[in-house]
């Protein structure tokens, strides 16, 4: 039973997203137990994709927060205004110190030195702010400064996603698309690449091999050389999944992966989901219109309508929920 599922991999509480006047998502609480397949359904414009994008770090929520792997990752920024101060303050302090020393010792050298150091500090802080190494993040944390995670942060934390309207790198080959997916797992730096260090060459070779494996996994064996643009629609969907898997995520967000597929393709997709879960032990969050798919694969189903959660539970519970039926009325076909 999914109720007794292990620890939550992701839990969103009171997530709200406004665009100007429009409330796309309204105070949605949402939990994903580890290892489960959870589906998010709802009529068009119910705010599914918006919620999705909030979770993926693409939108900053207006209210509420999202915990991922036991860390608060996504929420409205706190004390964001204070961050620039951390860049400037050290500089100012050193400069003042310099003045002080000059007053005392009366030597201009001290001031000049201090000024140089100050400038150095400014630039270092600036660079730190850009690269955002752990030290910097920890410092911000200590100062109570919180910035909502960006999409790439979420990927690093272990979240992979696909898009409703396929967003592959069209002019790249399938293999390169997957290798971009590995980006956050590869370590080689500019220097490694420029100097062609052994470690860089090794990493590239491994990445190449791995990419082929991922392509094989989703059933694109031998197509690694194809330009993404030239792949068939179904293959593009598979490639997107392979690209997402390549980042070795814990949680996989799939946005209508079977949209526009014929029954047989859809069936293959569903088996793929099964394998992703069984062989890779991944948790999956699924947005889907095709009720067959939803009811077939998911442990839990959540229904959004007009940005609000109107129902949640096992597929059967949801199917019987009158509010869901009401929400879907008029689109009886899918109900």
């Amino acid at each position, binding site marked *: 039973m999914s109720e007794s599922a292990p620890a939550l991999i992701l839990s969103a509480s009171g997530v709200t997203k406004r665009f100007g006047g429009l409330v796309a998502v309204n105070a949605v609480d949402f939990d994903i137990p580890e290892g489960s397949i959870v589906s998010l359904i709802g009529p068009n414009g119910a705010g599914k994709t918006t919620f999705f994008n909030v979770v*993926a770090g*693409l939108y900053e929520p207006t209210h509420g927060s999202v915990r991922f792997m036991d860390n608060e990752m996504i929420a409205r920024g706190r004390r964001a205004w204070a961050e620039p101060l951390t860049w400037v303050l050290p500089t100012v302090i050193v400069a003042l110190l310099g003045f002080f020393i000059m007053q005392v010792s009366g030597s201009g050298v001290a001031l000049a030195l201090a000024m140089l150091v100050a400038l150095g500090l400014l*630039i270092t802080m*600036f*660079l730190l*702010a*850009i*690269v955002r190494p752990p030290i910097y993040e920890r410092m911000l944390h200590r100062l109570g400064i919180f910035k909502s995670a*960006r*999409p*790439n942060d979420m*990927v*690093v934390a272990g979240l992979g*996603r696909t*898009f409703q309207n396929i*967003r*592959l*790198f*069209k*002019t*790249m*080959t399938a*293999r*390169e698309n997957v*290798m*971009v*997916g590995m*980006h*956050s*797992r*590869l370590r*080689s730096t*500019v220097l*490694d*690449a*420029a100097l*062609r260090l052994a470690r*860089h060459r090794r990493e*590239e070779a491994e*990445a190449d091999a791995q990419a082929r494996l991922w392509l094989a996994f989703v059933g694109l064996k*031998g*197509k*690694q*050389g*194809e*330009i993404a*643009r*030239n792949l068939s629609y179904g293959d593009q969907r598979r490639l997107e999944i392979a*690209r*997402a898997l390549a*980042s070795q995520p814990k949680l996989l967000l799939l946005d209508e992966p079977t949209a526009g597929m014929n029954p047989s393709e859809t069936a293959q997709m569903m088996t793929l989901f099964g394998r992703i879960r069984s062989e890779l032990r991944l948790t999956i969050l699924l947005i889907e219109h095709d009720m067959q798919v939803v009811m077939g694969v998911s442990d839990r189903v959540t229904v959004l309508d007009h940005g609000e959660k109107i129902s949640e539970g096992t597929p059967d519970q949801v199917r019987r929920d009158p509010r869901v039926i009401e929400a879907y009325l008029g689109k009886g076909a899918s109900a």
Partner: protein
Amino acid sequence: MSARRLQGGSAPLRLLPGALRRGVERFAGRHQSLAVLVGVALVGAFLPVIVGVPPFSGFGNRNDFVDGFANAGVFVLLALGLNVVVGLAGLLDLGYAAFFAIGSYAYAYSASPFSHLDVPFWPMLLVGAMVAATFGILLGAPTLRLRGDYLAIVTLGFGEIVPVVFLNSDTYTNGTNGISAVYQPSAYGLFGIGSFGFGNPWPYYVTVLAIVAVAMMLLYRLQDSRLGRAWVAIREDEVAAASMGVNTVTTKLLAFAIGASTAGLAGVFNASKLSLVSPDQFGFTVSFTILAMVVLGGMGNIWGVAIGAFTLYEVQSVFLKQLTNFVHGIHLPAVDLGFLRLDISAIDFVQYQFLLYGLALVSMMLLRPEGLFPSRERKRELHESAEEAAESNEEVVQA
């Protein structure tokens, strides 16, 4: 994959017959960097020879040409750098000359009687590059969040501001007079050359060749790396790239920094060759010229861009002059439209090089956005085996 990438752009290779060409490509595949160096060396050796034979020999003597080639080398460097920003990462930088200026001033300030710092040339190559890179980051950091076209404008503004700053901060830049008598590189007596001097263009030519060769080699390596893929990914679809774990900010900044540092190199070399740096050398026309070179050569294609830059420079500095002389030689009748008088035989075509650039930019974008050189390869690659196609990620604008 390197082989095909090299072939993907390397126009000179087209001269070779099939078998030999394939051989070269196989070799290039295994030793790409070496191949680039050899390629540049061959071209470098070829140029001074070809200008010895008619019709070129009629346009001026060899030393003039070599001097011109050395100047062209500067633009090749600039184009290579801008190619990283525009061609690979897809960030339209319209203020690129600013980094050229920063590199030039960095050298002029630290190696001229103006400051009496007298730092030698060779270390300054690196320092200049680094200074330019730093400014690249400092400019990029706040602006890279912007969408493409906004970025273009910000960089354009930056490109306008920098010369004004150099113009008005007399204490450090000698203001409008510029810094003159900048020291020339010194080979410390090697090859019998102390200071490079003014009379003999060959040391400059060789130096710039070396710089270009190394730059191209490094750029190829980066293009083949994780970073190169990330650049193209951002160019293709920034949101998707970010959602695949690419840190768009740092990746773009690296593109900016690397592009800027190349411009810094070019600046240092140029300042040392011209021995003069003044604010009026770095107007927007320079930025746009370089952009035209990149677009013409084929955005994202290293060899193509290098050739595009060289061609365009020679066209404006040699061909247009000859054309002018030719047209002045034959006396065409003047077109007379009332008070509008268009006397073709009085036109100085050198004056209209920007018309040429304009036409080049427009027709390129409309007819073959992938640029002059890569296109043929790409078309073929698309029809060849999948593995062959593997490299056509070099062109920027399709989809």
